[in-house]
């Protein structure tokens, strides 16, 4: 993998020792102010590491803090506690300032494909914005569209003429065009038709890995995560309760909550017993 070649130039100069994780979360917490005046800890004491060219699945039921964690990683929320380090650089909250150059290597694909593209700008313009960050990545608008199986003439169109799945692929192409080292997908397949979910998830994985990036793939659906992730982190009520290689999570879950999640998956694979469901 040639992750260094794909990265923005500024980041490569400071690359830490090869053994260090690409992304490291150290007891990160995030609080939301409640209307009543109190505070709610949506993410609490999360420590996680993401290696190079690794796909980490993040699963947990709705409201457990997955999106908040994704925002913390991108600098869209300010940690109440702890630190996020990307490639040796501390991730600072974005605020109103321009995003720091060395953090541009973290890109995100959002859950709602209907909101993630600008309705008044051509697809080409939106892809060009991302390509400008990564002119040496070898991508063109046409090759990006081809990579996500869309016809080249899509570039001239506006988002309203695309279906949800097509929009999500454009959003993936845009994130990819920026030459990310970490691609965060916040339930990117949750609003798609069932038959599309696996396909889009795999497409994301393949494109990320082929371009030398790592990926954090968030989902509440364990079965899709199983298909594409190297490791899985299980989140419950703001905490990571278990992190393990995918096969191990699947075959030998340790935490009761993980077992509960696995038990909730319908038995469709013909392999028989799903561990933890007895």
């Amino acid at each position, binding site marked *: 993998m040639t992750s260094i070649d794909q990265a923005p130039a500024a980041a490569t100069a400071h690359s830490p020792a090869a053994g260090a994780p690409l992304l490291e979360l150290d007891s990160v917490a995030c609080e939301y102010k409640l209307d009543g005046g109190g505070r709610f800890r949506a993410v609490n004491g999360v420590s996680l590491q993401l290696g190079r060219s690794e796909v980490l699945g993040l699963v947990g039921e709705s409201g457990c803090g997955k999106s908040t964690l994704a925002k913390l990683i991108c600098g*869209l929320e300010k940690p109440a506690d702890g630190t996020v380090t990307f490639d040796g650089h501390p991730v600072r909250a974005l605020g109103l300032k321009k995003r720091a150059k060395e953090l541009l290597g973290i*890109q995100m694909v959002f859950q709602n494909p209907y909101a993630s593209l600008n309705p008044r700008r051509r697809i080409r313009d939106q892809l060009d914005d991302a390509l400008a960050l990564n002119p040496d990545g070898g991508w063109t608008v046409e090759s990006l569209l081809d990579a996500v199986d869309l016809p080249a003439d899509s570039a001239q169109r506006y988002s309203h003429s695309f279906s949800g799945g097509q929009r999500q692929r454009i959003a993936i192409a845009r994130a990819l065009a920026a030459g990310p080292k970490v691609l965060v997908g916040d339930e990117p397949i949750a609003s798609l038709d069932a038959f599309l979910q696996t396909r889009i998830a795999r497409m994301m994985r393949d494109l990320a890995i082929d371009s030398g990036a790592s990926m954090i793939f968030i989902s509440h659906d364990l079965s899709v995560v199983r298909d594409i992730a190297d490791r899985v982190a299980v989140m419950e009520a703001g905490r990571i309760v278990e992190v393990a290689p995918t096969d191990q999570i699947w075959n030998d879950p340790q935490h009761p909550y993980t077992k509960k999640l696995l038990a909730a998956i319908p038995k*469709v*694979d013909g392999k028989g017993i799903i561990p933890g469901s007895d």
Partner: protein
Amino acid sequence: MSIGTPKQPANAPITEAARRDPVDPGLKRWQIRFPKALRTPLGIVGAGILVLWLIAAIFAPLLAPFDALAQNFPRLSAPNGENLLGTDTLGRDVLTRILVAARTTLPAAVFVVICSALLGSVLGAIAGYFGRAVDEIIMRIADLVFAFPTIILAMVIAAALGPGLKNAIIAILLVSWPSYARVTRSLVMTARGSEYVIAGRLLGFSAGRSLAREIAPNVISPVVVLATLDVGSAILTMAGLSFLSLGAVPPTPDWGAMISEGVSQFAAWWIAFFPGLCILTIVMAFNFIGDSLRDTLDPHTAQEVGETTS
């Protein structure tokens, strides 16, 4: 790469919304759907009246039968073969003065609306995007202006600055920008949190670029609608100010001033009636057009635009 066994036939063919024809080029960046908007009956009527007025204003020197300032005719003569709309207290031709007045009123109203739309939406966008103290300051000033009836505040400002068309324009500008600020602010606040704007920020857009490139194209239509609706009230306010001798200085022809003159000459109804008719038709035209444009906005935005103009 050893990952779990796939569960479903994952490479199922894509039937997804059977890739549509790439014919529809969609909305252009700054496009507002004028043609569709003007397909409503009221829109057509409004556009028709407006076109007539534009022709009248542009060709006024050719259409006007006489000199607007010359006092050549019998005073207070009723509409007749020579003075089609009669003459005023100084023996000037009313039709001529109406046509000439249109040449200042219409451009002045459009100008003041464009200026206040620009001023108001820039301030509103800044308030909505940056929030906090900037927002507080801008919107409290806007609230202050809103607290007074428009015409009263415009009167006070115009009176303080002294009569004249320029000062009337400044007065109207100062009282009318807050409605644009309000609408733009709330639209920008909504847009700021949407994923496509955040995606732009993640790509390293500055605040200015984010506002200009991502947000502006999405908030421009409601502002244009509001501005169209506002031309009518700008004309009314301008007429109101000159009615009170706070607008164009005599002997410059002006609809508001003509009505004011006619009020004291009750028997000579034509002096006030025809300028009044002018104001009525042009205000109606802009409101019809604005209303039909508003119908093309999505219901939520339309409601917001409606709230500030009601």
